[in-house]
């Protein structure tokens, strides 16, 4: 099986993986490959800043859209384990695979605007 290495910094054009827009860019590239049943490596080398919003929009969304193949087809590299960055990625996957929890999370944020 082919493994396509996706270098996050190259895709988003910055070492700051901090906004959802950048996460969406990674999702678009990765989802194109996953939808063809190809495996991917998400390479975080060079990244200097990382937020939960980015992780949710990239890794989390990939698990949300491709729940059956994500675990076997996505490898994440150059993230220390354990680390707060690894926690953010794991949390985004956890939310993506638990729609009820994600809904509570979303509704709580929405309530801030009421």
């Amino acid at each position: 099986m082919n493994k396509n290495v996706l270098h996050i910094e190259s895709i988003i054009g910055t070492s700051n993986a901090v906004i959802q827009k950048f996460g969406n860019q990674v999702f678009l590239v990765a989802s194109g490959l996953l939808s063809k049943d190809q495996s991917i490596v998400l390479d975080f080398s060079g990244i200097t800043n990382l937020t939960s919003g980015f992780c949710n929009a990239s890794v989390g969304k990939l698990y949300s859209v491709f729940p059956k193949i994500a675990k076997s087809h996505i490898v994440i590299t150059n993230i220390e384990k354990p680390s707060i960055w690894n926690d953010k990625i794991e949390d985004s996957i956890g939310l993506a695979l638990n729609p009820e929890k994600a809904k509570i999370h979303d509704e709580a944020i929405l309530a801030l605007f009421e």
Partner: protein
Amino acid sequence: MAYNIIRLSDFDPENFPQIFIDANIWIASLENNNFSSTDKRFNPYIDKFDAIVNLNTHTAPKIVKKLKNQPKIVMTNMLVSETINAYLRNVAMKQFLGKPNGNFKKEYREERYSDYDKQLKNIVTDIQALDFTMAFVDDDYSAMCPLDFLNEINRDIDYNDLYYAKLLGKLGIPIMTDDRDFLFENVTVITNNQELLKHR
């Protein structure tokens, strides 16, 4: 009374050197997920937040030279505190308990098996990750005659809003907020809130 209110869709981040963004928009931008079909009326704020941050990621002199501004996001002592507390109380605790209300201290912060420590670390490091976009503002609190504020607060005006209005008005910095109560003559407000927009 005349208020300076800008519709969110008309707001071009490049036109301002500094922008204050309220805690709720900070939380939505840092922590939002798109895994449920929940109404996301805060998304236009996230888009603007992202646009501001994106402008700050440019470092190539050729690109930077072409920009009118790389707007810095103003950070104050009170805003850091509000963002962390609002996230833990209003988002993280609800998610942990799986219900809309709970006793913050007993059921969450002091609960042995809660994810409080993890979520605290999460929001703190998310804020720190945006360090390169921030301008830290000293509020010169004593010069603001803070006790005089107390004569101005009432059921429509809370202390924090008034404090921000005084500070941002003095510094000439606009605020992005959806808070319908944030109506002050001396501060430019960028919003999508229909109640605020009625005062344009």
